[in-house]
């Protein structure tokens, strides 16, 4: 058992650090949940992609550098430590790409992945519907067979960044007689196609961070079906764990935020306030725990599976606590617009998206602890 990084890892770290020092914008970009901010973040994705740093762990043919998971963690640590911009393309990179790598055709990989890595096409996930949140299998939007493809109808909602994104991917009921997990098809579609209406939705602070999508006879060619028609549920679920495991929220994000929290505490705190001091210490301890747990996870040979639910609960709770502590340290300024406040608002959604923490607790109880399945 050891925590030593190899020479190649250290070299990679140094290279990434130097690149970031040269390229990260001096001024933070405007919020990526605004039209202007989105455009600036898209530009940033292109800058990253040009040097194959948008998806370092992907194979070279898809735009990456083929580095190990450990080096990806190193990349993430450096990325957040440099306070580099938020990743506007993460839905595509973290959710769609792993699914395509597992189930996509060579043609799809070649067509979809390089432009995604280069920041040219930004993807939105269209899974949820008004009547299908936690109970995703209740979805009702349909895909109907037509010449050479499918026609999509129905409504999707809460689609992150769909207000400004280019394309979407989601599950549709392709067998009208089917129920629940059966008869679903996983497909990709353009958000600017005929029949698509995108209505941006303001999140808690009013910024249009997500959108609802109204689909009225949208044509999708067969080439854009992922996996087998009718087997969409299995296709989607085979990679859903990615979202809750390390890929969605890497430890580097929290270790870097904690460093900044400690600075804020040193600048701002009343030394006699031991309650706040303890919360800062806890944020430090918990982000360290998450980092070490990450190293443990990648040291193991087996698939993480349902254990990703442990991660999801841990990082989302940590994120909220850390940012609440920062706002409390800011005192009366805590309500004023700032990077801390922006990240606080973002953190509040963590226990809800990617499967709510209640759903994750059910998964832990039933699949990891072996408790009996309850009513659904």
């Amino acid at each position, binding site marked *: *058992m*050891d*925590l*030593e*990084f*190899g020479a190649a*890892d250290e070299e990679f770290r140094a290279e990434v650090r130097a690149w970031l020092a040269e390229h990260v914008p001096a001024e933070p970009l405007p919020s990526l949940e605004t039209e202007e901010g989105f455009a600036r973040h898209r530009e940033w994705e292109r800058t990253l992609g040009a040097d194959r740093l948008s998806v370092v762990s992907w194979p070279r043919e898809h735009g990456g550098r083929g580095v190990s998971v*450990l080096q990806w963690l190193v990349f993430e640590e450096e990325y957040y430590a440099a306070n580099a911009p938020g990743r506007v393309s993460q839905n595509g990179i973290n959710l769609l790409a792993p699914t395509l790598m597992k189930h996509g055709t060579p043609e799809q990989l070649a067509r979809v992945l390089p432009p995604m890595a280069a920041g040219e096409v930004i993807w939105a996930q269209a899974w949820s519907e008004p009547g299908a949140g936690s109970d995703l299998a209740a979805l009702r939007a349909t895909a109907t067979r037509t010449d050479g493809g499918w026609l999509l109808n129905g409504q999707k909602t809460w689609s992150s960044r769909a207000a400004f994104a280019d394309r979407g991917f989601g599950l549709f009921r392709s067998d009208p007689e089917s129920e629940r997990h059966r008869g679903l098809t996983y497909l990709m579609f353009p958000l600017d196609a005929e029949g698509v209406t995108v209505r941006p939705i303001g999140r808690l602070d009013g910024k249009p961070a997500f959108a609802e999508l109204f689909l009225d006879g949208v044509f999708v060619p067969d080439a854009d079906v992922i996996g087998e028609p009718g087997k969409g549920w299995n296709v989607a679920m085979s990679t859903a764990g990615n979202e809750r495991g390390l890929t969605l929220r890497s430890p580097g994000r929290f270790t870097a935020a904690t460093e900044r929290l*400690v600075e804020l*505490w*040193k600048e701002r705190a009343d030394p006699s306030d*031991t309650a706040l*001091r*303890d919360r*800062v*210490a*806890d944020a*430090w*301890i*918990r982000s*360290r*725990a*998450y980092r*070490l*747990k990450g*190293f*443990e996870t990648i*040291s*193991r040979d087996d698939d993480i599976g349902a254990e990703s639910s*442990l991660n999801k*609960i*841990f990082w989302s709770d940590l994120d909220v606590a850390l940012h609440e502590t920062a706002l409390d340290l800011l005192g009366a300024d805590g309500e004023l617009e700032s990077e801390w406040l922006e990240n606080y608002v973002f953190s509040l959604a963590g226990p809800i998206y990617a499967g709510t923490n*209640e759903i*994750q*607790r*059910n998964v*832990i*109880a*039933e699949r*990891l*602890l*072996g*408790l*009996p*399945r*309850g*009513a659904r």
Partner: protein
Amino acid sequence: MKFVLSEEQRMFAGTLRRLLADAGTATIVRAWASGDHGPGRELWSALAEAGLFAVAVPEEHGGAGPLPVELVAAMEEVGRAAAPGPYVETLAAAELLARSGDPDLLPGIAEGAAMVSLAVPHALDADAADTVLGTDGKPRAAAGGPVTSLDPARRLFRVDGEHPAEPPAFGVLMCAAQQLGVGRALLDVTVEYAKARQQFGRPIGEYQAVKHHLAGAMVELEFARPLLYGAALAYGTPEFGRDAAAAKVAVSEASYGAAKIALQVHGAIGYTDEYDPSLWIRKARALHSAWGTPAEHRARVAASL
């Protein structure tokens, strides 16, 4: 980088786990609490034979250590079984004596012949121990009879003389490892109970309120463990004190949290001293403040930032 136990390390922990499980510790704990140290000493010797103390003692004094990772894994097993006796104290004494004190005791510790207690500030099981030391490594005298702990298997004695402001970090780490084992055992026994106990015609483990308690306890315990091993790997570096303190905070909260959930999920039977989980529940609270409270260790972490 490989941040998981090696095959040998897992085998070592597995051997200790089986040995402790076969010993039927609940009976030994009860005997120890009533002042009968015989069965507890036998278990001590058996663990010594399996190498538990040897890995704390340097080679030149008859051991094979110090091997902090092995010791953390071993103490997790000692905690899982709620084995009574000054294990943490003896391991901490070995480390202390190897560094600064008088090495005469070390061969005896390695063999399991010497049971040592430490004044931090009370001395655990001074009536069973062969020697009581201060954290300066010097002998101390226990004064009077035991003072009563919430955990009757922890027989504590007041000790004359100066007491340290800060407990030695090595012992802090050993204590935390023991606590993780206590917490994990409580989670496991409670999960089994939740599968078996029926109310309203179904196992209580089907109810979400119960499930969510147990899942929450698992999250906390599983994220506390890497801090322990991370601290063990920091042994001998300037960060060791900080990392041991961080581990103690996380494990204390996780283990005590698991104990409260174990009590709640067991209902009234969990509140009785004749039912075995009480042995673990009381220990979880007692160890919460032994070797420094979470508040003290948080302050230590904060001071290092």
